[in-house]
Structure formats: structure tokens, C-alpha cells
């Protein structure tokens, strides 16, 4: 019988092949998809996020864990859909206009998927109007804005303004190297995360 704690460990170690095989075996043994997701996969990513926050692991370890999680989730998704299990939230994320940096945004997207969110990744250099278009198209309840440069940070304020003018009732969280809580408050963001791991807590709070 598959022990979901072992699946958790496999996720933490970033063992993609074992994560996929164990997920398949767990399903074959009749373990519920939601239980595999929460007690096996998300439990593993919670540990990864915590260790990353404490500088116990680094980006490579986080990336391989997220990759293992993603591959296992692909096996689970049809079963989750059949069981009517919904994501805990739906978020659109992008790096703001003029900024081409994506590693931070990608890490946040991975961690949020790992935590059970559905994430619509808009990529980099995203104009405010594109955020509006995609929010209307996808019905997300949360938007994440990333910027790595002081010169592109104003794009966050501009995007928030455009979203409000469009009358969209979404929560907005921001992050990136030059961004601070103070700046997030100043531009009217609902939340700020200093790193990918804490972004999960902020996102969960905003969709609750």
C-alpha cells in the first residue's frame, strides 16, 4: 500500500519519476485523488516552501520539487475533475509591462500550483490591457504582478489603476526584488509577498 508520507518525501526530493509512479500506484490502490493531492503532493510542497523561506534549500531544489509535483498532478487531474475537486483558487500572474524577468514569477506560479491553485500564466512584459482581457476571459479571482526593476515597478501601479477602472473585482498581490510592503500599500495592492513561499500564504488569505 502506498504511504502518502513517502510520496511527500519523493516530492521534497524532486524525484519526478517516483512521484509519477507512486501517484499512479496510489490511484490504482483506490486512494482518493483528493487525499493523494493534499496529503501527498501539497504536503510535500508545503515543506519545500517552508525550507526555501528559511534558506535551507535553494531555487534548484524548489524547481525539481515543483517539476515532480506538476508531473504527478497531471496524472491526478482527470481524477480530481471526476471527483469534483476544485482548485482552492484561480489566479492570473504576469510580469508587468517593460519587464522581461520571469524566474520569480515562475517560482510563484509553481508554488501556487503546488498549493492547489489553478494558475493562468500571462508571461512577461504584460500590458495592463492584457491583464484586463485575461481576467475577463478566465474569471480569476486573484491577480499576481511581478516586477524585478525599479523602473518597471510603476507598471504595477498602472495595472492596478487600469483593473480598477475596468470595474474588475479581483484581489491583487505584488512581489519582486524592489517591491516592499510599503510600496504595495501605497499602490493599493491587496497583498505583498517577499518570496515564492510566502506568496502561497498571501494568496490563500486573499481567496479565503
Amino acid at each position: 500500500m502506498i504511504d502518502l508520507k513517502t510520496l511527500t518525501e519523493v516530492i521534497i526530493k524532486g524525484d519526478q519519476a517516483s512521484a509519477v509512479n507512486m501517484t499512479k500506484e496510489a490511484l490504482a490502490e483506490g486512494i482518493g485523488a483528493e487525499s493523494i493531492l493534499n496529503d501527498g503532493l501539497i504536503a510535500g510542497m508545503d515543506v519545500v516552501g517552508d525550507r526555501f523561506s528559511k534558506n535551507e534549500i535553494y531555487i534548484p531544489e524548489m524547481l525539481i520539487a515543483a517539476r515532480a509535483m506538476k508531473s504527478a498532478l497531471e496524472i491526478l487531474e482527470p481524477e480530481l475533475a471526476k471527483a469534483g475537486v476544485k482548485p482552492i483558487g484561480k489566479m492570473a500572474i504576469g510580469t508587468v509591462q517593460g519587464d522581461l524577468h520571469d524566474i520569480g514569477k515562475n517560482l510563484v506560479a509553481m508554488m501556487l500550483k503546488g498549493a492547489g491553485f489553478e494558475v493562468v500564466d500571462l508571461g512577461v512584459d504584460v500590458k495592463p490591457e492584457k491583464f484586463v482581457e485575461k481576467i475577463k476571459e478566465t474569471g480569476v479571482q486573484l491577480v499576481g504582478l511581478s516586477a524585478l526593476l525599479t523602473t518597471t515597478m510603476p507598471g504595477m501601479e498602472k495595472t492596478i489603476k487600469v483593473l480598477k477602472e475596468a470595474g474588475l473585482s479581483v484581489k491583487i498581490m505584488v512581489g519582486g526584488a524592489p517591491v516592499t510592503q510599503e510600496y504595495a500599500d501605497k499602490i493599493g495592492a491587496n497583498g505583498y509577498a517577499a518570496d515564492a513561499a510566502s506568496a502561497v500564504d498571501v494568496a490563500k488569505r486573499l481567496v479565503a
Partner: protein
Amino acid sequence: MLTIRENLQETMKGGNPDRFVKQFEFLEIIYESPLPPLAMKPGENVTDAWGIYWQWPKEQLGPFPVHDDEHIVLKDINNWKDYVHVPKVDYPKEAWEPALAHANKVNKEERFFSVFYVPGLFEMCHHLMGIENALMGFYDAPERMHELIAFLAKHELNVAEQIIEHLHPNALFHHDDWGSQYSTFLAPEMFRTFFLEPYKKIYSYWKQNGAELVVHHSDSFAATLVPDMIEMGIDIWQGVMSSNNTPELIKQYGSQITFMGDIDSGPVDTVDWTKEKLYEYFEKSCRRCGKLHFIPNLTQGGDYSSFPGVYEAANNAIDQMSKKMF
């Protein structure tokens, strides 16, 4: 009054400097060198000699490599040799003349001079293959990553040979960002495994061939890599962000390596910069870091700022602190 070179040496060795070293005053950077090759302007998109496609959005601070499926160079680390081809290094004598003319104007008794060597080994890995692929590559294909890094290091040595032959620099200013503001990209053990030996070879080559000083830029957190920096032969770590707890590093390692930075460019080098804020940051930094083994400097990697006037105002702030503290 000590000369610029003397004052730097006293600062570095923990002797008796008579003022703060003013940012890059000791180092003339020769930007006209044909190697390494990348010249871009804001608004341009350029494919460089490695095949890496760069975009530089207008009104932004610098270019960025693009790694979508269409543009990524190194698509499969297991077959890296199929994708990575070195650019030429043998430029004719005429190509070196502007750089040589500039270098010949430097008073070498007083100051050092160097090319701006960028990108370094770690950055080359992720410029070629995308940062996520590179970071996972250290786990997925460590032997191939070692091979790639060795190949890139050999290229650096070939480039170094050309620069040394034509320009005879007495210093090296070398750029390779090893972390973000609060963390290194790699765990220290992983960094050591992949990059210590190649960098030891590169920096010792430069020192064996005329470079008296190796200045390494990484505007990041990298406190945990300082022992490796010392071992690989870095004399000055430029770009030390304040997140490193610079005073503690100076205390622990100052006798072996000098720390240049501590004034993070992000908060002070902005479109709406003020002299008051800049001076405040420099005062706090100089007072917490002290006079020895420390060069107050904006953390940006060069003798300039992103916004006009900031670098010069920073120099004035340092003059003021020298008057106050010496």
C-alpha cells in the same frame, strides 16, 4: 595625501587610509575592447555571437536574454556540444586600437585599468539554456554541466589571452551574478562543486599574466560564498548588497577580501532620486562598515548609475563622509 592607489592598498590591507576610496576611482574601465562582444542600446533586439537573443525594452535599465522555444540556444544539456559554439576571439590589431588608446591614457602608477568582462560562467550557463533549465541541470545532468562549464572556462581563458596580449591590463573587473537580493541561486556546496575550480583557473591565469587586482561583481546576497571568493582569488567583491550584513563580513573576512558596495542601488538610483536620501544612505553605510576593508559604492556593476547624476552625487557623499570620519 595618499595617491589613489596607495589609499586603496591601505584600505584593503587594513592599514592607514586617509579617506574613503571613492567607488571606482581606482579602476579605469576600458569599454572599447572588442572582447567580450556585446554592444546594445535601449530599444534594440540583438542576437549575440553565441546565438543568444537579447531584448532591451526602451526606458529600461538593460538587456535581457529571451528563452522562448524559438530563441533558446542550448535546448538539451545532454547534447550541449550540438548547440554551443564559441564566438571568435582573434580580432585584428586594428579592432583593439580604441581600447589601447584609452588604456594608454591611464596613469598606471596611480590607478588600475581593466576591460569589463561579462558575462561570467554562471550567467553564461543560464543565458544559453534559460535559468530554470540551468538550475535544474545541476541535478539532472551534473556531468554535462561540468563539461559545459569547463568549455566556457576554456573560452574565458582564450579571451583573457587576447585581452592580455593586446591591452596588458593590470586588473580584472569581472561580472557574474551569483544570487538574488536575499539568497544565492545555488546552495553553497553546489556552487563550490561546479564553479570554484574553474574560477580558480581563470583568476589565477589573470594574476599570472599581469593582473594585480581581481574585482568580481555580484550585486546580490553572496555572504555564504565569501570563503570561495577568497579561495578563487577575488581581491574585491563589488556589488555587496546590504542584505549580506557587510559589517559582519568585514569583521570576519576583511583581512582576506575587500567589500565594495553596501549602498543598494535600487532605493537610491531612481528617476526621482534625491541628494538627501543618497547622502543618508552613504552616511549610514560608512558609519556601519568603517574605514578598512570597505569601499562605499552603489551596488550597480560599473562606474555609472542608471539615472543621471546619481553616481557623481554618490562620490560627493563619500567626500563628505571622508571629511567627517577621517
